[in-house]
Structure formats: structure tokens, C-alpha cells
């Protein structure tokens, strides 16, 4: 272990953490919210309400019988004015429940802290809370807490790396909600019978690390540790984090549970800590609003279903005409086509860029410099993927293990020829999937 390299390749993508010092502000309830019925990986929910119904805060408005899902709850109280089908940020069509707020924010009387005595009830409670992976993957969290090899899982890794530039919402969570993080982690460790817990935090957030260390000392917690990570991208990727903390290689398709750990985002754990106390399901989300086209970049808590437009209005409106709006960070976030789209559960940032910052550089010829290979955390060869994809060579893509790519975007970032390598990787992966589903 002493002479073994414990670090995967990473890049310096800049930090741009302008909002790290901005305490979270709670956004007032907007006039209307539109709540998407597909906010998790897996099956979309079916609306449980119809036009004209009155709903209360925290009332369940979407659910389904499918296995992989979480229910969806109303984030405001008011009247359902429509069930609409609209294009979502991914480009597909979604059912959305439109609720006109009455401004009362009357809480559903059925909401009370969950009563939990064993692991099974814990998993059921997590499912009822509507919690998905809030780091961005939106994987239903309850399934993560119900691993097949429950006895083999010994470690909880909490992901507080926040390696994406610009985003500071996890950082603020760790400062403002640290007690909830600890309570949530202790609950997970209790019901899953885990031995220890590591909170991976990049070393550009020393205040968060100190905060946790002090609290562990004060509360006499001796099985939770902070784990400082070098501040470089992509330290917060699940597979990278597992390698950094446990020194185990996590290939694509391998569940962290198979390696004896559970990885969860720090905001998910903080929500869990809060939920176990008051039983309020996931109806609002802390997020960073930043970018050169926003007048007042800040961290806010907004109800799920708020329009991006309303969020930006709350942050002082547009300083310049926006050209690109991202849901999530600049490295892996999704560019959306309109500012009329609603916030979903896994949004941790809204970044608004003007024409200058949204500029897409011109692509030039590959000069074979190998920077993409040096930047790749898994030492893959993105330029090889791109060539193989252009030739339609599925065999070569498989040889180069394109499925190991996690689309972190490091290769595109470092490419001096500005080739869209990460995009080609995605296309290559799609091509391999298609070929294998055709029985090739």
C-alpha cells in the first residue's frame, strides 16, 4: 500500500466556486409549479390526482406499481390546474402535474416521522420519502440501501467531493446541515449494520472537513471519518471515489455493494437525516444558481417543479441574454433548450451562460498528443473510441472497453484540438449497446 499509487488520473478543470460563501436562501413559493412524473431512473409514475383537485404540501401525487421507482409528492399546496404532457430536459415527453399555489403551504396532516425498528421498515420509509440519488444520477436510493449481499456490505461512503466547477450546494449542505448528515449516516449504519463511514470531501473545502471533524469529536462518534480528497476533477464520480477511499477498482456494471460499500451523495444523506425527524418527503432542493448571465449568483432552496425562469428571477434575473442553461455542473450537466423547464429532484445547480461563455470551440485535427488518455481516470483511449465510432467498428470499441467510460468529460476538456470526445464516447457506447441488443 505504501508504494502503490492511490490516485486515478484527474484533471484541473478550474473551480469557479463563486457561491461558496453564499448562505442558502429559501425561495418563496412560485405561482405555479409543474412536477414531472419521471424523476428517477426506472419507471415513471402515474398521476394520483386529477385536474381540479386540491393538494397539500407533501401529499403523494404520483406513484406506480413498477419495481424501480419512488413516489412523487406535491411541493406546494393549491389546486391542480392540469395534467399535461410536455417535452422534458432529456428531449423525451413527460407527464407533468401543474399545481397553482394558494400560498398557504398547508402541510398534509398525514405527514409524521416514520416509525422504524428494522432494516425492512427503513428501506420502505426511504422509498416513501421519494428520495433519489441527489448527486445527479437520480437512482432510487431505497434500492441502494437494500443490497442483495447485505452482510458483505461494511462501509458507507458519503460523497461530498463536489468536484464539478461552479457548484457549491453540497458544500453549503455540509456547513448548514451537518447534523442531519451525521444523523442520516448513523441511521443508515444502524439499520444496515455497517462498521464505518467515510465522508469524502475535496481539500478545497477545509471548512467542511473541520466542521465534521469537530462534530465527530464533540459527539464522541468514532466510526465516522472525513476523507480529504485532492481537489481535482472527477474525484466525486462514484467509481473514482471508491478507488480513492477503499483502493478497490470498481468497473462499470459492478455495484458498489459487491465491493462491500454503499456510496451516497451528502445531500441525500442530509435529507434522510431530516426526513427521519419530521417525515416531510423530498419536495424541495438546494441548488447553486451561477453563471455569467445571472445577476446575483447564490445558493437557494427551491420547491421541486419551479420553472428555471422563476429561479433565475429570484436571483435577480438575467444580467445578459442567456445562450446556454445547464441543469447540473458544466462537466456532466445537461444543456436545456428552454428556461421554461421545471426543476427536478436531482438538480444541484442551474448555470446560465451568455453567448460569450456558451461558445463552442471549433474542432481541429487530432494531433495524437495523448492528453485524453492521460486525463482518463480509467486510462482509456478516447481518441481510439472516436476513430472506431466513425468507422462503425463495434469490435474495436469493445476491444478498447468503451463501456468502461463513465462520460466524465475529462477527455473533451483537455483536448487541444477541441474534439467532442466525450460525446463520441456516448455515441460509441450507444452503438455497442445497439449491436449487442441485435444479438451480435
Amino acid at each position, binding site marked *: 500500500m505504501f508504494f502503490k499509487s492511490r490516485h486515478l488520473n484527474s484533471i484541473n478543470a478550474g473551480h469557479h466556486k463563486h457561491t461558496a460563501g453564499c448562505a442558502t436562501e429559501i425561495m418563496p413559493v412560485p405561482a405555479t409549479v409543474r412536477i414531472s412524473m419521471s424523476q428517477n431512473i426506472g419507471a415513471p409514475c402515474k398521476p394520483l390526482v386529477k385536474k381540479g383537485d386540491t393538494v397539500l404540501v407533501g401529499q403523494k401525487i404520483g406513484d406506480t406499481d413498477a419495481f424501480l421507482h419512488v413516489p412523487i409528492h406535491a411541493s406546494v399546496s393549491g389546486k391542480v390546474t392540469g395534467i399535461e404532457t410536455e417535452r422534458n430536459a432529456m428531449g423525451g415527453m413527460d407527464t407533468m402535474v401543474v399545481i397553482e399555489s394558494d400560498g398557504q403551504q398547508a402541510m398534509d396532516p398525514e405527514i409524521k416521522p416514520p416509525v422504524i425498528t428494522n432494516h425492512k421498515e427503513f428501506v420502505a420509509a426511504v422509498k416513501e420519502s421519494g428520495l433519489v440519488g441527489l448527486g445527479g444520477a437520480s437512482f432510487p436510493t431505497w434500492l441502494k440501501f437494500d443490497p442483495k449481499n447485505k452482510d458483505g456490505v461494511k462501509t458507507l461512503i458519503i460523497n461530498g467531493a463536489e468536484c464539478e466547477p461552479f457548484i457549491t450546494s453540497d458544500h453549503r449542505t455540509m456547513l448548514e446541515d451537518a447534523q442531519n448528515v451525521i444523523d442520516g449516516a448513523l441511521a443508515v449504519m444502524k439499520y444496515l449494520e455497517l462498521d464505518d463511514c467515510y465522508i469524502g470531501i475535496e481539500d478545497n473545502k477545509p471548512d467542511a472537513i473541520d466542521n465534521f471533524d469537530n462534530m465527530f469529536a464533540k459527539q464522541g462518534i468514532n466510526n465516522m471519518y472525513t476523507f480529504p480528497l485532492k481537489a481535482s476533477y472527477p474525484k466525486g464520480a462514484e467509481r473514482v471515489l471508491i478507488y480513492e477511499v477503499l483502493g478497490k477498482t470498481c468497473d462499470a456494471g459492478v455495484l458498489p455493494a459487491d465491493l462491500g460499500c454503499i456510496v451516497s451523495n451528502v445531500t441525500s444523506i442530509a435529507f434522510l437525516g431530516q426526513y427521519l425527524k419530521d417525515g416531510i418527503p423530498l419536495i424541495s432542493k438546494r441548488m447553486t444558481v451561477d453563471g455569467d448571465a445571472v445577476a446575483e449568483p447564490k445558493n437557494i432552496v427551491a420547491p421541486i417543479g419551479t420553472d428555471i*425562469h422563476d429561479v433565475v428571477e429570484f436571483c435577480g434575473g438575467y444580467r445578459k441574454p442567456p445562450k446556454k442553461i445547464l441543469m447540473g455542473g458544466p462537466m456532466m450537466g445537461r444543456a436545456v433548450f428552454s428556461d421554461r423547464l421545471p426543476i427536478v429532484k436531482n438538480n444541484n445547480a442551474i448555470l446560465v451562460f451568455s453567448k460569450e461563455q456558451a461558445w463552442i470551440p471549433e474542432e481541429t485535427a487530432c494531433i495524437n498528443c495523448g492528453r485524453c488518455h492521460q486525463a482518463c481516470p480509467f*486510462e482509456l483511449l478516447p481518441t481510439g473510441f472516436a476513430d472506431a465510432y466513425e468507422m462503425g467498428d463495434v469490435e474495436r470499441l469493445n476491444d478498447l472497453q468503451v463501456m468502461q467510460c463513465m462520460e466524465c468529460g475529462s477527455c473533451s*476538456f483537455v483536448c487541444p484540438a477541441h474534439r467532442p470526445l466525450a460525446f463520441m464516447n*456516448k455515441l460509441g457506447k450507444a452503438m455497442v449497446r445497439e449491436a449487442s441488443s441485435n444479438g451480435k
Partner: protein
Amino acid sequence: MASNTKYYDNLTVSSSPHLVTSLDTTKTMLYVVAALCPAAIMSIVYFGIPAVVIIAVCMASCAFFEWAYEKILNKPVTVRDGSALVTGLILALNLPANLTHLSEIGYPIFMPILICIIGSFVAIVIVKQLFGGMGRNFANPAIVGRITLFLSFTAWMSLWPLTNFQKAGVDAVTGATPLGYLADGSLEGAPSLLNMFTGNIGGAMGETCAIAILIGAIILIALKIISPIIPVCFVCTVFLFALIYYAVTGGGPEGQSALYMACFHVCAGGVMFGAVFCATDYVTSPIMPMGKVMFGIGCGLVTMIIRLFCSYPEGVSFAILFMNIATPLLDSFAEDKFYGISKRKKEAAAAEAKKA
């Protein structure tokens, strides 16, 4: 919200990442030019006006040929990325600062300029553009340009002017390179190691001053333009090969120690310059780190084999050309053996399981 609020419905949609580095090909090339500057400045200090003329002619003609070829064939003009300037500068620094001595043996006075232009033409048009331009050439353009000139204009390419400091008190204007002395079988009159290190010797313009080349190497490595693997492997192989060869054969001519001869081989000729600036050319060297190791070692071996056992006194350019051609093979070999962290781990685990 006010009803007159403007929505934005036609935003740019693109695949992530939405941030890219500011380091582009042009900047990379400018950094390489900057790293070549110490060697270029030292060549001007040592050889004066002829060095300036040859550098200017080579850089200008390389840029011109790139521009003209792409203009004539109606391709996007890439001359602004600066790669042609790098090729021109490397080619110039690989030539002797020899502007007047050819006319003394009966050639027209403009001949050296013409030779430089021919070298640029071979490098840019034949080696680079005919194979598809930037990123597609299989061999280093400047190296092939130099080899072509060496084989076509051997007389001019083997007349090495003395440096301004060597000329003091001597009648001659040209002299032998250190490797020339060695090929003649005697090191009597050859320059000292200190002179070779500072570059006060006969030779190609940019190759003589080891210190200037080292400064360039430090610039490139510090800016992460090149990885140190190839230069280190190349120079170490030359050093070790010479050390072992002379130790086994009982020292150099005039009884020099094997260690002295090893240092001599590293400083003499184009080893340093080739290792830092020519062998590290992105396009024609392997991507995989293990491929780079094999590439550097191969360059060193071929260089020493040519120097010690073949009729040419110098072998760096041939060695680099040879390894350029082997690059795709080295890369696919390295891919087979050392590719991807998960595969490597798995194989290590399998090997351990076998042992147990």
C-alpha cells in the same frame, strides 16, 4: 411573475462537458517555438548571420508551402495553428549554418537558400500534406526533410562551419563535428566535454548547445507539453549502450574511459536535440506510456548501432524515422499489454491467483 416576462426558448443545446481548456493546438505550437528559442538564440550567437538567414528562410518557406498547398487544393487553411513554423524551425536547427562555403567549391551563391527551400518543401508538402495534413503524417516532417537534404546535398550537409569562438586564431572556416572525429578513429583535436556541453563545437545549428536544449526541455516538461518519458529513455539508452560498449571493448580511442565516451555520445551530434524536440513529436510518437518507453529505447539503440557499426557518423535522424514507422506497432502492442486500469488489475489478480 409579470406577464410581459420574456422566456428564452431557443438556447444552445450541446453535449457535456460545457467547459474546455484554453490550451489549443496553436498555443501548444507556440510553447514549442518558445522552448526552441534558447537553442535558436545560441545558434545565432555561435554562427551569426547565416543562422538568422537559414532560420528565417526555413520558417517562412514551411509556412508558405502549407498555405499554398491548402489554398491550391481548396482545403481549410491551417497555417495559423503554427505547426508549420515549428517544423521550419526544427528543420533549420538541424542544418549547418552554411551560407557561403558552398560557393567556394563552385556552386551558385543562392544554392544554400535553395537547399533550405527544398528541405521545407519535402517536409511540408511531401511528408505532411500528401499524407493528409496535420495529425496524419507517419513520419516527422523535419526529420525526413533533413534526411532528404543529407542524402541529396551531402557535400553541403557535411561542411560544418566553426563557431565564432572557435574561429579566433585559426585559418580554417569549417571543421569536423565531434562524431566526425570519432568516425575517423581519433579524438585528437576533438573538443572537450565542456565545449560540447556549451555548444562551442561544429555541428548543426541547434544541436550543439546542450544547455540550451536542456532549458527547452525543462520548459516543455514544466508546461506539460511533452512527457519526459521519451527524452529520458532515449538519452539513457544512448548513455548505457555507449558505457557498456566501451567498457567491453576496453575504452575509446586514445584510452578514454567508458564513462567519458558515454558522456561524449550523449553530448555529441543530435541526441539531445532529437530526443527533446524531434522524437517527442505528438503525431509520430506513441500515445501509450509504455509505447513511449519502447519508442525512446528503440531510438537510442538504433542511434548507437548506426554510430558504432555503420558507415554514417551520425544516426539520430535515421533512428527517429525508423521508430516513427514502428509507432503504430508499439501503440498496438502497448494497448494489448497495458491498456485500461481495470484490465491491468484483473490480469495482476489472475497472475497472483495462479501463483497461489
